[in-house]
């Protein structure tokens, strides 16, 4: 993932600016290298999504029209003509390489096409709208869970913690074993259905329109609390258990023993020696998870009818809305590749042993 790269020294001006040298310099630079790799991953993954459906040999337009015709019991005459028309509309009558180059061109312009099920809305519109809900919920919950879980794990893995702490945290961590959708239903049953404290479903009150107002903001928060907790409880445990393990491993490190032998204060050893070192793998984990939050939580979003990307993905699959599915998959690819790229760029700042550039 990371590698030692030698940045090219400033090319000497006396020998004249060597274009080749500058170009190899730029391409040799760590950031450029990582970015090119990012583009490569996105291209490769997109190509796979382009090819796979075409290997099935099915005609999505015809399938769709046939389905509609059966459902409506309408006459089937003119179906072929309609299919031709739509295929032209979607560019499916073109030779495959033209389809491919159109696809790449659209992708480069971040144009994900038009939805079949929600025609004529564009995939961009649909994905972007639901992405905001998912990122708002999942982004917040993921970061919160990371901070809380890592903190809990750090304390649990610290031999000098007060003894009672494990009796508080450990039962909490067992919640991690309950599947999120089950926890979601339990929460809905208790807090929304029985107690009626919080809304049952949705991202905002039915009948209102999203607007920038304080009342709407409060409404959104109210709707987000239960899904947030359903996810939070399970994910906190995940982070806490990982961090706890790292902290316990850390106790055997020579530099931890030496920190004690130096007579350092407990708080300094905890933060600067133990937590700081144990955090490194946690951060790697966080970056990878951040990449996947764009996938949304299909099950949790379904249970709460939350208007996030997971819910849209579910509907798109149900309605065989191929273009929306593809759009979401591309967003996921961008998310994961982007997070990996970000991690590559940021990690050397956290761990000096991973060094790039300057020799």
């Amino acid at each position: 993932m990371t590698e030692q790269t030698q940045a090219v020294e400033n090319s000497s001006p006396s020998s004249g600016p060597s274009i080749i040298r500058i170009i190899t310099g730029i391409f040799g630079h760590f950031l450029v290298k990582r970015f090119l790799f990012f583009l490569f991953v996105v291209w490769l993954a997109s190509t796979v999504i382009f090819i796979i459906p075409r290997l099935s040999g099915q005609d999505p337009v015809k399938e769709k029209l046939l389905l509609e015709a059966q459902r409506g019991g309408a006459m089937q005459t003119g179906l072929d003509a309609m299919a031709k028309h739509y295929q032209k509309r979607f560019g499916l009558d073109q030779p495959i390489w033209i389809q491919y180059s159109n696809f790449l061109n659209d992708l480069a312009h971040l144009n994900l096409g038009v939805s079949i099920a929600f025609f004529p809305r564009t995939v961009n519109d649909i994905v972007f709208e639901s992405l905001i809900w998912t990122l708002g919920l999942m982004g917040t919950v993921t970061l919160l869970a990371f901070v809380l879980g890592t903190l809990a794990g750090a304390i649990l893995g610290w031999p000098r913690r007060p003894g009672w702490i494990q009796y508080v945290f450990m039962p909490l961590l067992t919640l991690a074993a309950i599947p999120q959708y089950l926890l979601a239903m339990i929460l809905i049953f208790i807090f929304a259905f029985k107690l009626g404290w919080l809304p049952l479903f949705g991202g905002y009150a039915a009948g209102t329109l999203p607007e920038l107002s304080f009342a709407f903001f409060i409404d959104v928060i109210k709707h987000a609390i239960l899904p947030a907790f359903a996810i939070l409880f399970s994910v906190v445990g995940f982070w806490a258990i990982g961090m706890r393990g790292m902290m316990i491993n850390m106790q055997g490190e020579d530099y931890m023993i030496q920190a004690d032998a130096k007579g350092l204060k407990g708080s300094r050893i905890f933060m600067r020696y133990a937590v700081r070192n144990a955090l490194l793998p946690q951060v790697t984990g966080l970056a990878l998870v951040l990449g996947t939050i764009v996938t949304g939580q299909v099950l949790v979003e379904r249970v709460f009818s939350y208007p996030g990307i997971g819910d849209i993905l579910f509907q798109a699959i149900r309605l065989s809305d191929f273009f929306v599915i593809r759009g979401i998959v591309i967003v996921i690819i961008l998310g994961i590749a982007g997070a990996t790229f970000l991690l590559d760029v940021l990690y050397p700042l956290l761990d000096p042993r991973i060094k790039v550039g300057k020799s």
Partner: protein
Amino acid sequence: MSTEQAIETYREGARISDVDALVVDGLSVYYETEGGTVKACDDVTFTLKQGERFALVGESGSGKTTLAMALMRLTRPPGHIAKGSVLLYGHDLTKLTDDEMRKARLSEIALVPQGAMNSLNPIMRIGKQVVDGLLDHLTDDQSTPGKEELDDTVRDLLTRVGLRPGVARLYPHELSGGMKQRVAMAIGISLQPKLIIADEPTSALDVVVQRQIMQTLGRLQEGLDASIMLVGHDMGLVAQFADTIGVMYAGKLVEVGPVEEVFSDPKHPYTKLLIGSLPSLQEKREFLGIPGLPPELVALPPGCAFADRCPSSFDRCSVDIPEKLNIGSRRDVACHLYEGEAQS
């Protein structure tokens, strides 16, 4: 040989005064395990004068490091100091509160670890790792020194151990093993401790660097008028460096004496075999080992722990545990063979 030395030594420039720096009396470190009590360090008694270099030798698992850690009260559960006392200039370290003991570490009693290994925090600059020890030992009436003052201190310390001041800005992985060992020494002397415990400071270093490191360590110790306890199993190194040697076997200190005497006239059969196993330049011969294995510390034989491997053992050895016998000036041995020579 200088006559003003409190104890006998051939070391040039030694300044050993007749002040007891460290008096360890009956120190025992036990590990409570499911299989029983492991006596990792049992009834260890010895004295170090101010300015003296004491070397603790013994094979792996003989309790050297356990003893060193116990002196700093760094024994970790399930281990604990079962009995005994550790007097550093008259103050019993075993009686200090945890916070008093924390403050005593580095300022009174410092550990120089195997720096070539992993003893430095990998993600902290060297300068910072030198400074944090200083900062955590400020007394209540001392104000936090400014950045420049700290930088000066670090520069001075690094120079004293033979490093460029620029090393302060580097991370541990950017240093060689020898440089890391020097950093470990710089940290160790940063608060002018009275006792330096050097736990195998030169293992994992090549012989050229070993020599330089030991010279530096010796120079620093002399400069501070501190005593030093060297833990190691390199007999050659010990012979050159130390004034006094203590031999550990199965958690017990079986022989103590001036280095020259112990090497020329070892008393305990284990010491004899240990010294006999050293290769010699004068004659080419087969490597000699000590047959058998050290006993399991959890199930020690009833008598002497070395009896099974001892060429001179007799009936009593497998019945009675030999007591420490004083057989000369600063010369102790725990062996039934010398009962007749004991001075009381």
